């Protein structure tokens, strides 16, 4: 007995594509690019070898010394005269260069990562806020925080001059007052004069308690602060002040500034990280700001604003995820240039303190022995720098193509 079962028809709607997330899409494009995968492999090899060496391969640079084996050319097989194998040769103190290159990776890559971390976090936050408040009006609470903060900060000057720290609070209050009274004074023409007088009195009277001249100076400073605080500043002013400060940092060629900072701080890996990190802040601030400016006019942001979402939620749930891709690309490229800067610092003797291994410092140590023909002592640490930097650059290039298909053509 057989019954004819109705054929189950599998419906395939070719118009509906299977759902793929943006990141999965990007990953597929990245995988398809041979150069990007090469970059990824290089980066992975360097990261794994550096981390592996640091945790699982004991090496004490202070004890590593063998004058009998100094400046030996690379040998791959063990011979009676040269029993130990040094595939990269040895340096001026008879240290195995291969060991030091692998261990040096930990220091060199760490400097790059921490430095980029510093510039990424600070720069992005500054750029996010600058761009956001340039395109959205601040609400009452934000204005209140900004103006009292500004009042407190400006109040530091007269407070410091007169050694009266309560003045900080007075000017903070003046800043808050300008927000609180904004509506009431909207039609009052002499607001600036009123605040100037108030500032002059606040500074002058408290300054007079110390000395007459202190009172005079504090009155003048208070007058100026009063004028500044009279009208609540808007987001545009905040943004342009932030960007002006960034411009000042950018007006130094970046690694010259890093070299100069460390020259004054004194050598050390941590100082190098901080210097390279600070110097990189403006790049991310500018990038984040311009990305926020372009995103914040998009319909989905306006929509979330019109349904009444808070500013914090809009900023971190709608704006931030949509500006991530240029920042990721920049951070990858930034890692490459941070490693280069770190190597430059090390080469000039401003990075790792000897005998700690670091690629740049190894080059700086060995290049003086060049005339004796010891090419291996400078070739291999240099190649390590070139390949790690190249890896991050290849990966960054590939990421840009993968994350922004419109740019792919270039």
């Amino acid at each position, binding site marked *: 007995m057989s019954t004819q079962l109705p054929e189950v028809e599998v419906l395939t709607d070719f118009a509906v594509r299977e759902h793929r997330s943006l990141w999965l899409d990007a990953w597929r494009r990245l995988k398809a690019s041979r150069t990007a995968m090469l970059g990824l492999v290089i980066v992975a090899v360097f990261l794994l070898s550096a981390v592996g060496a640091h945790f699982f391969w004991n090496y004490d640079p202070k004890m590593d010394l063998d004058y009998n084996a100094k400046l030996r050319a690379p040998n791959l097989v063990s011979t009676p005269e040269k029993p130990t194998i040094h595939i990269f040769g040895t340096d001026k103190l008879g240290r195995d260069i291969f060991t030091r290159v692998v261990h040096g990776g930990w220091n060199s890559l760490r400097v790059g990562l921490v430095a980029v971390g510093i510039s990424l976090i600070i720069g992005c936050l500054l750029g996010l806020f600058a761009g956001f408040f340039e395109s959205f009006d601040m609400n009452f609470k934000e204005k209140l925080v900004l103006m009292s903060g500004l009042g407190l900060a400006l109040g530091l000057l007269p407070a410091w001059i007169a050694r009266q720290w309560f003045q900080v609070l007075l000017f903070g209050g003046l800043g808050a007052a300008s927000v609180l009274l904004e509506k009431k004074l909207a039609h009052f023409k002499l607001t600036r004069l009123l605040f100037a007088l108030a500032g002059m009195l606040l500074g002058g009277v408290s300054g007079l308690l*110390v000395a007459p*001249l202190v009172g005079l100076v504090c009155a003048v400073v208070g007058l100026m602060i009063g004028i500044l605080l009279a009208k609540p500043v808007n987001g545009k002013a905040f943004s342009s002040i932030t960007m002006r400060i960034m411009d000042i940092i950018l007006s130094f*060629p970046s690694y*010259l500034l890093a070299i100069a900072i460390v020259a004054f701080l004194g050598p050390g890996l941590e100082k190098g990280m901080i210097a390279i990190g600070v110097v990189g802040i403006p790049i991310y601030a500018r990038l984040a700001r311009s990305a926020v400016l372009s995103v914040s006019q998009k319909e989905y942001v306006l929509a979330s604003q019109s349904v009444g979402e808070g500013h914090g939620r809009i900023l971190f749930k709608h704006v931030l995820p949509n500006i991530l891709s240029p920042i990721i690309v920049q951070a990858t490229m930034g890692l490459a240039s941070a490693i280069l800067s770190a190597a430059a610092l090390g080469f000039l003797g401003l990075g790792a303190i000897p005998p700690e291994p670091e690629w740049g410092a190894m080059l700086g140590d060995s290049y003086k022995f060049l005339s004796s023909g010891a090419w291996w002592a400078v070739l291999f640490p240099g190649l390590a720098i*070139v390949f790690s*930097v190249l890896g991050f650059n290849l990966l960054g290039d590939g990421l840009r193509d993968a994350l922004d298909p419109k740019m792919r053509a270039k």
Partner: protein
Amino acid sequence: MAKYILRRLISVIPTLIGVTLVIFLFQRLIPGDPAVAMLGEHATEENVARIREQFGLNRPAFLDRDALVEGDLPGFFDSQYVRYFSRLLRFDLGDSIHRRIPVAQTLKERFPATLELALLSMFIALLVGIPIGIASASRRNSWLDGTTMIGSLLGVSIPIFWLGIMEIMLFSVFLKWLPSGSRLSPGVSITPVTNLLLLDSLLTGNFAGFWDALKHIIMPAVALATIPTAIITRMTRSSMLDVLQEDYIRTASAKGLSERVVLYRHALKNAFLPVITIIGIQAGSLLAGAVLTETIFSWPGIGKWVYDSILGRDYPIVQGVTLLIAIIFLLVNLLVDISYALLDPRISYD
């Protein structure tokens, strides 16, 4: 137009003051007492006191609030920063700690060497970068284009100091073709006119001197030129690719103009603006890169001088050179902005 230039000039002033502030603050980064740092740890107390007096280190950094309490208004403004700034206005960069010579004087002597190196590097970068960029844009996805892209990526990945070392190893140590340091061989002299040796030797018709100077400068100039060359190549290529997709390029080819004319007369002119910006940015990094290149090649310019001063902890020199390079960087970028407005009529001046 004049108004635009004037406004751009004025807008540089606050940045310039900010730059002097940053450089002044360097001094505060020195751990411990700067006077002791200058003299070394075994300095006598009188010497330390003398240095503190001489450099104004006994004055407060920005404002003297104690003077105010005593009723001394001018004293209120008599601070280290104000003194530093007013000295700068008189082109006084302070004295070298070790040699007690004005920093500005040595700067004037050593700057031409760096300038010559930077100019030649920029010349090489433009000479190589722009034609290759154009060629690889016009033959997109060819083997030439692929090689160019990989080459330019490699160019920004090589540390210039390592490239310099490798050059010395190959051409000076093993092949012995080129000298590894300084500007001239001993015994060769060139009558100074501009202090740019290549130019001076040509001006005075001293061809032996020119050849010698060229042999000395070529290795450091090539090392210094790698990064700008790579970046200018990339920028020219991508800017040309943009322009080549425009309608007027298709029109130009459609009406039968040769590829050469289309590329150089129609495309390049329009593709050049972003390249100029990059040239401006690279000018600053060339001067900064000179610190590394000059160190390796013992080039007697300001870069080597800074390196020696960092090792000798001669802080006024480091401050002076950093300030000079930052100012040049600012001015070059100002020129780029202005030339941008001159070249592109679409940019409004107001």
